[in-house]
Each structure stands twice: as C-alpha cells, then as structure tokens.
C-alpha cells in the first residue's frame, strides 16, 4: 500500500514535483515495494516510448522538407560521410558519434547486467532493482536508486567531501540534453537526461584506488569534452537546471 497517488508518482518520474516531496518519495522507495514498482513502471513506460520514437530523430530528413525550406537546407545536410581528417578533433568527434548511439550494444550487456544485479555506487543500493542502474524497455541503461538521486539533486559546487557519489561537470550535449559526469569508488561515467531518466552514456568500473581513479577520470573528461555543446554549466546554471528538475 503506498501513500502517494498515481498522479504524484507520475509527476515524480516527470521531474515535476517540488524538491521536498521528490526527496520524500525517493526515501520511501527503499521501504515501499509497491511504490518502487510503480515508479519503475512509469520509468519503463517513458523509456519504451522514447526508445520507440527516437529512431525517427535518426532518420535522414526527407528531401521534401529541405526543398520546402529553401536553399538554406544545403548548409544543414544530414550527418556527412566520415571525414578523412585525422586531427584530434576529428577523432574525438568520431568517438562521440559511436558513444552517442543507442545503448543496446553487445559490449555493454555484461556491464549492464552487473549494474542491474548489484554493482552499487558507494553502497547506495536504494530503489527498485537493488542496483545503481537498470535496463529500460528499449535496452538503455538508466540510473536508479542512489545514483539517480545524486544525479537529480547534487550540486558540484555544494556537495562537500562526504557523498559516495560525486558529480563533476554538468553540461548540455549536442542534442540539447543535460548531461553530468559522476564518479565514485566503484563506478564513474556520464549520464544524460532523457525523458525523466538519467541514461548512462558511459560507465567505467574498476577496483577502486588512486591509479584507477586518475585513468577513468581522464577518459570521462575526454568523452565529456567530445559530447558537450559550448561550455559546461557554471554553478548558477547548474543550480537552476537542478531546481527545474533537469527539464528543458
């Protein structure tokens, strides 16, 4: 039996709740299996819908639209053929292109399975499923539990030394989505906001320890640089985005 009605749960998943109620729900999820289940079903619905419709975004724009919108269309052609430019920028861009594809890739499945089964983020194993991440209906890996909570609420400028998950940069990627880098002893990576959930675009797991931290932090930073449009959010922008629930 849950004390939150379906409209509130939906608003929670949609990022429409005030901060206080959202935190209450997040805390309640650990003890309330019905609530956790309801939240997960809403998240899965959103993920199923976006997985279904996002393929339209990847389709090349039909000629009829380019023609309708005139000669300016020539300057906005769809993704060009791979460049022979071997500069660092081109290599980063190619890497970004690979990373930006949908996530139901074979090489992610072992990682994804371990995250779902029990790889926790600094012991924060709250939320449905018991892990820091779960697979959504479209095969994407999305943050759950304590990791989702950290991504939703923590500010890099105000998190202190305490938290098990530390957020790093917040930025907008080239599709306009908010993304955040994060790291903890057991897991780091980049998550991007998509339809109410944090999709894990890149994850780096390891044994912990200083050397691993340095290596993984560099890889994450390089990916973030390739993904971002413009500069990272400053402290005020980060706070504003967080307060709006990371919605557009």
């Amino acid at each position: 039996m849950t004390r939150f009605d379906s409209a509130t749960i939906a608003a929670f998943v949609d990022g429409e709740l005030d901060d206080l109620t959202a935190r209450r729900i997040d805390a309640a999820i650990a003890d309330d299996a019905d609530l956790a289940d309801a939240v997960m079903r809403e998240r899965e619905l959103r993920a199923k819908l976006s997985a279904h419709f996002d393929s339209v975004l990847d389709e090349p724009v039909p000629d009829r639209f380019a023609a309708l919108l005139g000669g300016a269309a020539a300057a906005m052609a769809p993704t060009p053929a791979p460049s022979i430019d071997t500069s660092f920028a081109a290599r980063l861009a190619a890497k970004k292109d690979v990373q930006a594809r949908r996530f139901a890739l074979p090489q992610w499945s072992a990682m994804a399975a371990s995250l779902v089964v029990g790889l926790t983020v600094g012991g924060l194993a709250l939320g449905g499923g018991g892990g820091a991440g779960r697979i959504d209906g479209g095969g994407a890996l999305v943050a759950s539990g304590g990791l989702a909570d950290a991504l939703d609420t923590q500010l890099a400028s105000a998190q202190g030394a305490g938290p098990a998950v530390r957020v790093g940069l917040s930025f907008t990627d080239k599709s306009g989505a908010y993304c955040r880098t994060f790291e903890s002893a057991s897991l780091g990576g980049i998550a991007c906001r998509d339809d109410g959930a944090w999709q894990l675009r890149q994850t780096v797991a390891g044994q912990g320890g200083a050397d691993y931290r340095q290596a993984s932090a560099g890889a994450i930073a390089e990916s973030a640089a390739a993904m971002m449009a413009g500069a990272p959010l400053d402290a005020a922008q980060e706070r504003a985005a967080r307060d709006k629930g990371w919605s557009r």
Partner: protein
Amino acid sequence: MAFEQELLALVPKLRRFARGLAQNAADADDLCQAALERALNSRAQWQVGTRLDSWMYRIMRNLWIDNRRAVQRRGTALDIDDAAMHIADDSHERMEAAMELGDVDRALARLPDEQREAVMLVLVEGYSYREAAELLDVPQGTLTSRLGRGREALMRELGEAA
C-alpha cells in the same frame, strides 16, 4: 540563423511528434509538411525571441485536430441508411490499421486524441506540464489528468504485450 534554417533544425523532432499523432510515416510527413507550410505563411505571427519549437508544435497539433474533426464530421453527415452501415467516425478503420502496427503504435492508436497528444508532448517531446498545457490551451489540471489516463492505458496494453 535564418527562420527557414531554424525550422529545418526542428524537422526531426517535428517528424517524431507527427509520427506519434498520425501513427504512420506517410501521414506524419504530410502533417509535418502542412505545418511547415503554414508556419512559413504565418511567419509574421511568430515573435522573435519566443520559442520557435512550441510555436511549431502548436501549429502542427492544431492542424492535426482540425483534420481529425473533419474526418469525424464527414462520418456524421452520412445519409441515415448509410449511417446504419458505417461507423460514425473512423475509429474502426483506425483499429484495423492499428493491427498492423507494432506494440507502441498500436497502443497509442487506441488512445483518444486528447490523451495521445498529452502523452506525446510530455513523455516523448519532453515538455513540462505547464508548457504542454499552454501549448494545448487547457488548464494544467486538465493536461495532467489526460496524461494520467493515457499513461495508465498504455501501461495496461504494453505491460500485457511485454
């Protein structure tokens, strides 16, 4: 950026929204084209500095609603004898067409228009409740209750199909 260039940049998302409203790719692209043509013709009504995307979505949604109403009116204007043999709106044809679609398309096709547009705007296009309600010109409470009924219906259908 020129007005046309900004519209062109929106086309992928507009096609996505149209696909959710119209459920088949051909009708969706026709809807998208009609919306863009109207936008080009009413360009003077867009205030520079306001959001072009919400303006475009509103144009497309209104065109789609007008089209849906015209289809339904055609049905009710039939002769009484014909009416006895025909369905008053096109829901029957829609259901048959829906049989050939995948799970998500089928489930969406079964939603009443007002729930489908709420689901598309909030859950797929990512508009906030306030923005979606403004776009549809309804109170926010109306938007959220339509959205709630739509997502419950979808979860029932898609949950069983999973």
